[in-house]
């Protein structure tokens, strides 16, 4: 926790805050941090229900949020991520900051109609994001 506090202190704005409790809340409960978000769609919305028989709904989820300056074990990020952050901050801001991306996925079973009218049940890898990371 001390390490985290130190990280937060580095991010402290130059202007001193007037409401200290609000100021510290942002460190205890960081906003917009990289995390998994729910997203659900129905194949009929895409008009794919003509060829996808099941499932009717699909939750691919997605990752969104800010990556902290110092990514720790929580994100399982490689050292490269930290190096890239340093490059962005110290050397060249055209190098992008690390991105919040899926780290793990789960499979999805899909039942489809093929163009020849045959039916296929298939299990596809990496169809639903289940964990996010900063890379």
């Amino acid at each position: 926790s001390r390490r985290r506090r130190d990280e937060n202190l580095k991010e402290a704005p130059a202007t001193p805050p007037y409401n200290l409790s609000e100021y510290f809340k942002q460190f205890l409960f960081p906003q917009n941090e990289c995390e998994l978000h729910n997203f659900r769609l129905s194949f009929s919305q895409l008009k794919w229900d003509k060829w996808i028989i099941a499932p009717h709904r699909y939750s691919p989820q997605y990752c969104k949020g800010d990556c902290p300056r110092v990514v720790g074990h929580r994100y399982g990020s490689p050292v490269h991520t930290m190096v890239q952050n340093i490059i962005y901050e110290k050397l060249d801001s055209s190098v992008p900051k690390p991105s919040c991306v899926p780290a793990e996925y789960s499979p999805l079973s899909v039942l489809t109609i093929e163009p020849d009218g045959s039916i296929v049940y298939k299990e596809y890898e990496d169809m639903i994001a289940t964990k996010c990371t900063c890379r």
Partner: protein
Amino acid sequence: PHSRGRVVSDKTSGFLVAPEDNASELNPLLRLPKGVRRGYALLPPLLKVLSDQGHQNWESEAPRLQPDSRALRYMKRLYKMSATKEGIPKANKSHLYNTVRLFTPCSECKHRHRDLMKGDVHSVDLLFNLDRVTALEHLLKSVLLYSFDTSVPISSSITCMCHLSVKEHDFSSQVCPSFSHSIAFSLHFEVRKRKWVEIDVTSFLQPLIATKRRNIHMAVNFTCLVGDPQQNTKLENPINVALVPPSLLLYLNDTSEQAYHRWNSLRHRRKNPARPRQRNSLLVEPTGDKGEGKPQGKRA
């Protein structure tokens, strides 16, 4: 940037989609790293969606042939048994297949079919086109799938005899091909417990599918009688089940990277040593009614 000519000649793009899908025109995707591109082979229609500028054309895609409603019901049931409501493959079902394809017979050789119907109502000529089976899909099991219609009387037991012949094409002849080899099965079951009859023809079709035969032509003679010879019940009253041509069901292991490999996943999760792959141990079968989807022991 890749020119169209370069894309076509790029051997790595051959894996992207089948040639007929015109996906080689998708330059933006082909600029992606190989590992990322690989995923787009997953569902060619996805690729088409991403390729169409303005997304105008993909919704007006030519309508697909509609499958037989009975076949669709069977596959929906298979889906329910193999995946959760959310579509996640069931982890506790330790089946080896990650792909199941159901083919209904083509309507070729109808003239021959009609001739046979006059003399022998049970003999049916079947042609299955297996073009959709990819080179990376390896056959685990093949099944001829018969469905009973509701007009079949509820009976205590039924015994069926099936005679199956695979035909070789003689391209010099205009008439239907000649027989090559045949096999006979005998089945006994109770109609009230099952609406489907599955005839395992794996050993019979394996050599044909393994040699990438695209068309499988067979003649099936399926005769069902009421009664059970094992219980000394007299066989009588033939039942017309062969009037509905059977479907061909292929249980496959898709070895492509976009397909889900259950055993890899389990190994990773449990940190167990590699479990041997047993080609014929399909532990889940969508035979439907109570107790019929049990492990292979009963069926064997």
